[in-house]
């Protein structure tokens, strides 16, 4: 259990770094130039990249930080944090699926940083499902 919480905390650190980078790129407009390697300009300049004036990447960074905090607290024995972690990660996974759909079928461009974030969220989902599955019986 503890190893899984530690793994979730480490993965969410990677998620924070990725989302923070995307936020900075978005805010400073660095990814707006089109390049051979990346479709980030299309993705980050699309209407879906901003929610109520806030870059979606910033929302992602906040979500990953919350996951990190909850996983760290759960690692140190705060059971309530572990209980909150599951619905949060499930919600993040569904948002990731929606964003993947937008990239694949609406914007028709993939941004590798967004895909990396989706991969992290998927791994986090596997971890929280494993935590529920292998939850030791209460005595």
């Amino acid at each position, binding site marked *: 259990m503890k190893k899984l919480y530690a793994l979730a905390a480490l993965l969410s650190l990677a998620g924070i770094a990725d989302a923070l980078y995307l936020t900075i790129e978005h805010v400073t407009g660095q990814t707006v130039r089109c390049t051979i390697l990346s479709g980030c300009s299309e993705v980050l*300049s699309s209407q879906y990249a*901003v929610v109520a004036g806030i870059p979606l990447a910033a929302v992602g960074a906040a979500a990953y930080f919350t996951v990190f905090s909850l996983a760290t607290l759960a690692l140190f024995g705060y059971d309530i944090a572990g209980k909150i972690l599951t619905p949060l990660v499930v919600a993040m996974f569904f948002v990731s699926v929606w964003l993947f759909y937008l990239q694949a079928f609406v914007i028709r461009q993939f941004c590798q940083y967004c895909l990396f974030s989706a991969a992290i969220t998927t791994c986090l989902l596997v971890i929280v499902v494993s935590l529920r599955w292998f939850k030791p019986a209460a005595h």
Partner: protein
Amino acid sequence: MKRILPFIIILVVLAAALTSAWYLTRTIPASQNPAANQPAPASPGSPQASPEQSQSPVVTGIPGADPPHVLGPANAPVRLEEFGDFECPPCGMFHPILEQMRAEFGDKLQLTFREFPLVPTHQHALPAASAAEAAGLQGKFWEMHDLIYEHQNDWKKEFDVRPIFEGYAKQIGLDVERFKRDVGSDAVALRIMQDGKRGHSLGVKGTPTVFLNGREVSFENLPAEKLRVVIQNELRGAGQ
């Protein structure tokens, strides 16, 4: 101690994230993204171009397609060369800016357009470049260039863009049958390849990339108000 250790870890991570964000936001220059938080100019109405423009080296590279697509007199004191991709949204946004610069600077500014389709990032970039070059073989490159950019949002989401470009060809009075043949011709492919090779020799990695009298204009200087200052500085340097 064990009870408060997780909170200390969380606070350390939060501080590290905020510090990194603050540092990177200050070190990465803002660009023309409309969503970007651009710093206010020194005084209203007098935007400052980034100072590195005058320090960037003059580059020549290998020749591109010959003859190039040029607007403006050959002896213009400022020669602007753009490497563009017709499907690239920032290139589409840059198109009216160049029109504005042409209107403002007239014969003092010469424009050259170079093909730099970003394949495979943009699935229709190559057909669009081919359509413009095929129109060029009938002497109407700029007419097609303008139509393709102005209607970028109309065709970029389509599955098959050929009928749309053929429609543009008809609209600007081209021989459509010849246009259809030319789009897939070796002559058109060769021109695009030569422009691409020139771009690579100049270190072009993305679009739009703009050179002014052989010096690359940084991306942050491409909004109209900054590009105008860069051109004015270049004119002053040429004694105009």
